[in-house]
């Protein structure tokens, strides 16, 4: 086994290191303290934060790749072991033991319609629905038992060790914390007990496990949401600071630059960039994901740049900056040491708000045909495929359902979390 780093992995690691450094150096600023206080102020913010952490955990597991002698796999693939490679013949419904479509099989000289057994679901089971239901129930109860006892352990641990750190003196907050973490733990246990024996969300057209695909899509969504901001931030910060602080012809030039980029309707600009750039890269799915992030970053830095420019404009006249100028501090130093930290709340709010928009935009871009590579697992690709599946008869709904639910909880939590940030950084607006 050999550890390998794909391009997107590398960027994600860099992003994590950057965020860690940022939290280390700026973690004590009033903004961050306010954010921490706000998250433990309302139950819904706490729940959103926990769910986001859960998603981030899955995404990170999927960002650790290594090479075995046969194939490249991620830590998540390793945990879901067999589900990443096994393939049925074609569609099968959730928890089903048989294929969704009948096959014609010659039996004793007659052609007969048969629903063939699946190769990788309920292998040891006898062929009656009773035994299947009993088996599923047993598995569910085992999983719930394990999950609940783990939650109990967590409760004990927090109660004994962490109580004072959590500052969760509010009863409703404590309940929210334990219920959410309990539900998440139980979900992990349930999928652990069920996914190896059944296709929890059925299989797709070529027989791949849909549950596995939706879980794998989490990484694509997260990478798209975070890495795009990585590409966007340098442009927005650099140009915004320069334009706002130095003014003059530089300001005019930068304003012209972002007005021009802004003038092209969003999807068209993304499509034009993707169309012209995609011919230049090899057909590597991972690189294409990175390219998409870059293109999205290029098209979306303008809004943040404008905000930063305006705020720098305002800060420039503030007394502490004027006194720094009076003391003879250099321009670069003023911009980096005195203005930049005071812009961070705008940056954070914008990044979080953009994140949910980007995850949603991915589905639309996939539909238009300029999204991630068709071989990448992504919610956009899944939903796109399910467009045809819903039209077929009998319809196939599980891919749409699975991707919708996983995507919804991510975007919904991010949206709620961005509310928390607004409340923390900009209390007047709420």
């Amino acid at each position: 086994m050999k550890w390998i780093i794909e391009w997107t992995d590398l960027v994600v690691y860099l992003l994590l290191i950057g965020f860690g450094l940022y939290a280390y150096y700026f973690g004590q600023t009033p903004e961050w303290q306010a954010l921490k206080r706000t998250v433990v102020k309302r139950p819904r913010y706490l729940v959103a934060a926990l769910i986001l952490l859960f998603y981030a955990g899955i995404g990170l597991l999927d960002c650790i790749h290594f090479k075995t002698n046969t194939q490249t796999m991620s830590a998540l693939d390793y945990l879901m072991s067999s589900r990443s490679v096994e393939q049925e013949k074609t569609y099968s419904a959730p928890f089903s033991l048989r294929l969704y479509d009948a096959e014609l099989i010659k039996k004793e000289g007659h052609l007969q319609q048969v629903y063939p057994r699946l190769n990788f679901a309920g292998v040891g089971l006898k062929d009656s629905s009773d035994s299947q239901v009993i088996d599923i129930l047993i598995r569910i109860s085992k999983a719930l038992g394990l999950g609940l006892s783990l939650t109990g352990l967590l409760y004990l641990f927090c109660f004994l060790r962490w109580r004072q750190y959590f500052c969760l003196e509010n009863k409703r907050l404590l309940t929210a914390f334990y219920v959410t973490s309990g539900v998440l733990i139980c979900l992990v246990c349930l999928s652990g007990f069920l996914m190896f024996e059944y296709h929890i969300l059925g299989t797709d057209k070529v027989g791949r496990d849909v549950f596995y695909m939706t879980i794998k899509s989490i990484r694509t969504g997260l990478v798209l949401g975070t890495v795009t901001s990585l590409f966007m931030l340098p442009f927005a910060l650099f140009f915004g600071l320069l334009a706002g602080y130095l003014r003059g012809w530089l300001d005019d030039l930068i304003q012209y630059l972002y007005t021009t980029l802004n003038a092209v309707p969003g999807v068209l600009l993304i499509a034009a960039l993707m169309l012209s750039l995609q011919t230049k890269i090899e057909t590597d799915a991972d690189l294409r994901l990175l390219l998409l992030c870059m293109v999205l970053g290029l098209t979306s830095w303008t809004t943040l740049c404008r905000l930063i420019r305006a705020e720098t404009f305002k800060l420039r006249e503030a007394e502490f900056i004027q006194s720094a100028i009076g003391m003879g501090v250099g321009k670069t130093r003023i911009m980096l040491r005195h203005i930049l930290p005071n812009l961070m709340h705008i940056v954070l709010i914008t990044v979080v708000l953009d994140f949910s928009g980007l995850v949603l935009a991915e589905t639309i871009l996939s539909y238009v045909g300029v999204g991630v590579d068709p071989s990448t697992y992504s919610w956009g690709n899944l939903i796109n495929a399910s467009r045809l599946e819903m039209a077929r008869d009998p319809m196939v709904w599980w891919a749409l359902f699975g991707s919708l639910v996983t995507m919804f909880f991510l975007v919904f939590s991010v949206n709620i979390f961005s509310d928390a940030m607004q409340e923390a950084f900009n209390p007047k607006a709420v």
Partner: protein
Amino acid sequence: MIARYIFRRIWQAIPILIGVNLLTFFLFFLINSPDDIARIHLGQKYVTREQINDWKISHGYNVPLVYNAEKQGIEKITQTIFFKKSVKLFFFDFGPSDAGRDIIQSIKERYLPSLQVALPAFLLALSANILFAFCLILFKGSRLDLVGALVCLFLMSISTLFFMIVGQFLVAKILRWLPISGYEDGWQAMRFLILPICISVFASIGAQTRWYRALFLEEMSQDYVRTAIAKGLSPFEVLLKHVLRNACIPILTGVVSVLPLLFMGSLLMESFFSIPGLGSYTIDAIREQDFAIVRAMVFLGTELYILGLLLTDISYVFVDKRIRLS
């Protein structure tokens, strides 16, 4: 006075158009050479040199990029790809698409269906969302407000694509109230348009209602509202007479600036419900990698956007008498 103002705004818009023009030229001709474009359309592999040259001649790509040394006089400039393909965009001369059809002709045929979907959807969404936001503000601080805000957040978190798939499935396939997709000329088009319009209105509720609500809230925190309440007006009157009127300006900015872009139609709705408008035209072009059409659409979109900005500036003057044309 106003004529001079408009003239100056148009004058200011020209550098932006030049910028976008250069950008499209850079993307479509410098990053991808005409040879690349020819190869895409002829298939990636097994293409001979002659085939590429023939394709370039028949589509007018067989001249140098920016400077033609072989020609005389003015033709040194005009007989280039930059002039023939990029500069002519300024004069709405989009030329033929890579598939060979005249782009202007297609636009003329297709803008009407686009408008038929985009305009009613836009107006309905606007009025519905302002109404919803108004209701939420009316019950500010109550349960209803909180639930309404959460519902908006909920709707915001679902992809438009999902609304389209499920809407089409429920209304057209299960209930059979309306046709699944398609288009007809004249009044018959109504049947086909209702579903896409309704779905796009529904999909807009989350984000837009939230936006209008924030807007009204911002107005509500102003001093004049407190004064109005203090002098004894009912909250409803304050909302209707003062808040709505003052919130008009930001609403107007949003509305007027996107009005011209409605001409381009809705990319998603049109292609999903196979309505032969400009949106589906663009999507088809993107999928078939027809660079000529994409280039034309990018430029057209920019022109419409700038027109929108211009209209916004002018409309300010009519709404807010304090703004002077300087």
